[in-house]
């Protein structure tokens, strides 16, 4: 969108009759430290007050959905990593959850537990970054360091699980890339033990901090009705009083086995969103603590009969079914067969409802791989939330929405 001189902007939405030539236009982004990623907002300002905000996105558009039409179901998981790179494991699980729904595969209980654990660790990692960045943008640098210090431990855990720190690609159709190791269990146990103290420290640092409360309380109100009408999900909707959490409402993976609570607030401002995220980390930790001690034994991938997950080397070399299955899955002109159908499957990602709408056409490449990106839908509410606030509130609202530009633009 071209930058319009302030005098040429339409004025009918303003209450005053005099010409609005004192309004001026500020270009926020696309490269700005407080946007964290590449997005641009054209702000119309009256002094320091934001009269209107016009988001201009697409700087990071990489055609992920088009790529999904030429990569097969297992290859595309690497692209889902790059969508929300703050919690890539949740994207992996969401993608393969949708693929398995399309294929009608029931994954093994062990795989369900491991996926639940990594999803919750990804949620903690996302909320640490999001809340840390809100703190950073509103002037609490120490808080940010506390959060990032623990994210390093989480990256270490992910590295133990799948060998990659940042872009994990841990899931496969019908299972996982590797089974977990005793070292993984040890590291997760150590994390579960030490993380509550970090949370206490973080809460003591910021929850009653006068500057932080002044910057976030009463900023960016979203009512329950508005949150529903604007399709908000996840922590943002829950901070506005929408008690909807897919982990409870449509228990997927093994969430039905665990005791945890859905964290809600009825206030709906930036401070409430911060508090909801802090509370959710505690609940996630509860889930991880329960899951890590009760992981069922058994295989991590579905059996050879499903013909979707690669068999183990032992099966390949010692059984004819294993050999055939390995051959069929590895040949580029074979792969597995999908129905001529379409389905939608969603998970409660750290950011909100993350779903994939997949259209199968018989081959192992999706005909259409639509991603329902929570960041995109939440960012659409931004002009509504910021209208009437001051310029310094832009970063507080932007931070509390947790916008990931790679997921926003895909």
């Amino acid at each position, binding site marked *: *969108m071209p930058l319009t001189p302030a005098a040429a902007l339409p004025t009918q939405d303003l209450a005053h009759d005099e010409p609005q030539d004192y309004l001026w236009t500020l270009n926020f982004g696309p490269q700005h430290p407080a946007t964290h990623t590449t997005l641009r907002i054209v702000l119309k300002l009256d002094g320091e007050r934001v009269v209107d905000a016009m988001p201009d*996105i*697409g700087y990071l*558009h990489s*055609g992920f*959905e*088009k790529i999904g039409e*030429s990569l097969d179901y297992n290859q595309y998981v690497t692209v889902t990593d790059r969508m929300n790179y703050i919690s890539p494991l949740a994207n992996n699980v969401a993608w393969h959850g949708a693929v398995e*729904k*399309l294929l*009608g595969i029931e994954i093994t209980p062990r795989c369900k537990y491991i996926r639940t654990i990594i999803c919750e660790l990804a949620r903690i990692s996302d909320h640490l970054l999001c809340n840390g960045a809100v703190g950073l943008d509103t002037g609490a640098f120490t808080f940010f360091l506390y959060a990032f210090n623990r994210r390093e431990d989480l990256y270490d855990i992910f590295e133990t699980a799948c060998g990659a720190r940042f872009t994990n690609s841990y899931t496969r159709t019908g299972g996982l890339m590797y089974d977990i190791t005793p070292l993984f269990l040890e590291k997760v146990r150590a994390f579960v033990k030490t993380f509550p103290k970090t949370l206490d420290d973080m809460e003591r640092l910021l929850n009653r901090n006068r500057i932080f409360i002044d910057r976030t309380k009463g900023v960016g109100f979203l009512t329950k009705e*508005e949150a*529903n*009408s*604007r*399709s*908000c*999900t996840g922590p943002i909707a829950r901070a506005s009083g*929408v*008690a*909807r959490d897919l982990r409870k*409402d*449509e228990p997927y993976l093994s969430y039905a086995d665990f005791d945890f609570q859905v964290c809600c607030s009825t206030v709906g401002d930036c401070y409430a969103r911060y508090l909801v995220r802090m509370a959710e980390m505690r609940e996630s930790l509860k889930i991880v603590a329960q899951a890590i001690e009760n992981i069922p034994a058994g295989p991590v991938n579905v059996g050879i009969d499903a013909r979707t997950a690669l068999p183990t080397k032992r099966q390949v070399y010692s059984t004819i079914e294993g050999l055939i299955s390995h051959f069929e899955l590895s040949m580029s002109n074979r792969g597995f067969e999908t129905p*001529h*159908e*379409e*389905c*939608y499957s*969603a998970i409660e990602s750290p950011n909100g*409802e993350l*779903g994939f*709408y997949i*259209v199968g*056409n*018989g081959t192992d490449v999706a*005909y*259409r791989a*639509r991603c*329902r990106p929570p960041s*995109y*839908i939440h*960012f*659409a509410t931004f002009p*509504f939330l910021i209208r009437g606030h001051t310029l310094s509130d832009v970063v507080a609202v932007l931070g509390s929405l947790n916008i990931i530009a790679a997921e926003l*633009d*895909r």
Partner: protein
Amino acid sequence: MTRPEMIQALQSAYPEIKTSEFRGDTRIVVPRERLRAVMSILRDERSFDLLVDVTCVDYLNYRGAQDRFGLVYLLASTTSNERITVRVFVNEPDLTVASMVPLWEGANWMEREVWDMFGIRFEGHPDLRRILMPDEFTAFPLRKDYPLQGRGERHNFPVLTRNKG
């Protein structure tokens, strides 16, 4: 009201609605003219208050497909936790469908993305502009007839060098 009853009530009001079921998901196909009316009923009387997603599928060369584009509206209820998928088929040359922005504010950007990627016009949309692709872009990249090889739109953009610019 259970799900089969709800579908029956809808079908008795609009007999042209087709329903199908896949892996526990209920899907209905609505004629284009009836979309706004059916969506209002679903929102106001059946408590589907959350528009989860609006997307589109280009069925060019898809086996057994009768229509070119299929719009997909995913609805959910925040109170009863039900989901329903509403589909509408549109064909060239008349690629227009009623906008859902009067019912859900959240439809605004979702419909803009569908317009940007597939070129489906939404009647009654307040601000139907391209959103992810640049304004100068002329094609609709997620259509199946969009070429994947060859010289693309990038070559059509004017090249500005430091001296000329």
